[in-house]
């Protein structure tokens, strides 16, 4: 059992960290305040081969493993949850399914530009009336000759307003339940595709979260990903990887919040000495470190198992559940350690706190993670 990252992973982590500190950290609060998706950052990330880390080299990706992808997602989360969220949605949800389930032609046309960082990806599962009960969807795709016609509304779609492709889940056979769901590659330029809302949120505002409406969107049959009826099993498989990426992002949020609190508590003096020398504050910072380290270990374990081809249903749910909770708790304590300053936007803890809350909701709420783990334990 080896807990050291391989040298290549360490070098990549260090270089991505340097980029994040130089290019992202200085604007992280500003893009939140402005609700601005930082295209220029994603362009640079593309040039540095970050946008296709776990995608095979054959399709323009880096060919890295899931552990490497986790390391990169953590570094982005450490400085900006919003950039991190758009990144993992692009990668785990918008790109990876095309690699896993697409034809060679689909990969060449749709995956390559995503992996190279020229375009941004998204996927659309959730609906206004369908969240945790994700298969209970109203969006339909009806066959019409050699086309499908899509109708419905999708909710909370990360990147939809800046994406070049969206993987839309729709019902092709209303009688078949889970087996009646299919996945379609939709181009936002397709007629009938409209971004109806870009939500104002508690946090993560540099990452657009959208409601999209599909009104008689006609797509050729070669936009069907995999076979008809495979949409649900694809979704389960995709979310197993997606959970690891949210766990990694959460670990990054926790790490960023922990570092801010550690530094501040060493500098801030009250009663004539640094507040970190008071037991109450020291214990808080120690627990922040403990939770962050625990979240990282579970994340790296799930990523390593994924790379080994093991079943990661339980491991990825555990990592996601624990890391998202750790991120919220550590960020909350970081605000507390900073006192009044922590409540201001001049200091990052409030941003980590806002961002962290979503991690307990997106890609399966904590309650759904408990459900998954409970089933795995035979309960």
């Amino acid at each position, binding site marked *: 059992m080896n807990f050291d990252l391989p*040298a290549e992973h360490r*070098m990549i982590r260090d270089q991505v960290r340097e980029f994040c500190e130089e290019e992202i950290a200085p604007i992280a609060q500003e893009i939140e305040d402005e609700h601005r998706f930082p295209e220029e950052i994603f362009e640079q990330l593309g040039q540095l081969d970050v946008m296709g880390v776990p995608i095979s080299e054959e399709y323009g990706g880096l060919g890295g493993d899931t552990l490497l992808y986790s390391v990169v997602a953590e570094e982005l989360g450490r400085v900006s949850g919003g950039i991190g969220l758009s990144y993992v949605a692009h990668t785990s949800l918008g790109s990876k399914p095309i690699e896993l389930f697409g034809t060679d032609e689909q990969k060449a046309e749709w995956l390559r530009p995503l992996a190279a960082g020229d375009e941004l990806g998204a996927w659309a599962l959730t609906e206004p009336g369908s969240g945790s009960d994700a298969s209970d969807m109203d969006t339909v795709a009806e066959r019409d000759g050699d086309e499908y016609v899509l109708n419905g509304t999708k909710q909370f779609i990360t990147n939809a307003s800046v994406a070049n492709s969206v993987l839309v889940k729709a019902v092709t056979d209303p009688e078949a339940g889970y087996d009646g769901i299919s996945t379609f590659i939709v181009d936002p330029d397709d007629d009938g595709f409209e971004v109806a809302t870009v939500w104002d949120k508690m946090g993560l505002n540099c990452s657009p979260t959208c409601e999209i409406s599909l009104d008689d969107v006609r797509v050729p049959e070669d936009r069907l990903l995999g076979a008809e009826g495979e949409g649900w099993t694809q979704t389960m498989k995709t979310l197993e990887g997606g959970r690891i990426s949210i766990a990694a992002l959460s670990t990054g949020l926790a790490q960023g919040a922990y570092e801010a609190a550690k530094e501040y508590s060493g500098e801030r003096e009250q009663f004539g000495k640094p507040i970190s020398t008071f037991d109450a504050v020291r214990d808080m910072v120690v627990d922040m470190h403990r939770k962050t380290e625990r979240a990282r270990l579970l994340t790296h374990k799930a990523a390593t198992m994924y790379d080994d081809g093991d079943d990661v249903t339980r491991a990825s749910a555990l990592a996601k559940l624990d890391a998202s909770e750790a991120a919220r708790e550590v960020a909350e304590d970081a605000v507390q350690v900073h006192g009044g300053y922590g409540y201001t936007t001049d200091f990052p803890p409030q941003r980590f706190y806002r961002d962290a809350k979503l991690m307990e909701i997106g890609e399966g709420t904590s309650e759904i993670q408990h459900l998954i783990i409970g089933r795995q334990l035979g309960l």
Partner: protein
Amino acid sequence: MKILVTVKEVAEAADDFEIEGTDIGEQYLEYDLNEWDDYAIEAAVQLSETYGDIEVVSATIGPERSEETIRMALAKGVDRAIRVWDDDIAAADLDVAAKTRLFAAVVDEEEPDLVLSGVQAADDGFGATGVSVADEIGFDWAAVVNHLDTEDDLSTAHVHRELEGGIEELTDVDLPAVLTIQTGLNEPRYASLRGIRQAQSKEIAAFGLADLGLDADAVDSPISRTGMYEPETESDATYFDGAADEQAAQLADVLREKGVVSE
């Protein structure tokens, strides 16, 4: 054409550290590529990208630990690397003359047309190795280069040298030459992730003294470190309060008092 870039892994002390013997305790040190060398690497890689058909080789004197740092140079576009080290070098207190003898032997081996080094190292800060190597190998040289143009046939480098007091010297240096590179010459790139992956399989050749035709005398030094201490820091800051005109009056008093301006 071949460019040799000398690079060094430098130690940086943590904010709080302790001195052990004549050095900072190893547990307080972190290692990274010398900042000046990053600009020298970028200059070499840019020349290689501009002209094509240029091999960029990095040379370092350092233990096995430094390979991770060297690999970052390989990731940024250096073609291959040389690392000079053995037990005799490890046991020596390397001074400028010793480093000069080692690098001169590498130059003999590689026969580069251009040698780029950083102006100085961030840790010991002698700021002498590049020029000393030029003298030893008989190359022309220019120190503290902050602007670099080259003739299309790469026969001559047109350089700006940063001198004291904000003065720049504009001069031409015929190749083969040694240039010591100042920070700000260019904008060092981030290594791409693909570059980092490819760098894992690039060659880092290890050379000992014997491989370079030298013996232990080459790293002998008449200089030895006898002590290390943290200098007392003094701060003598005066804070002015009040409206701008009051502050200006106070500043004027201080300047007169210190003799900066006459009464």
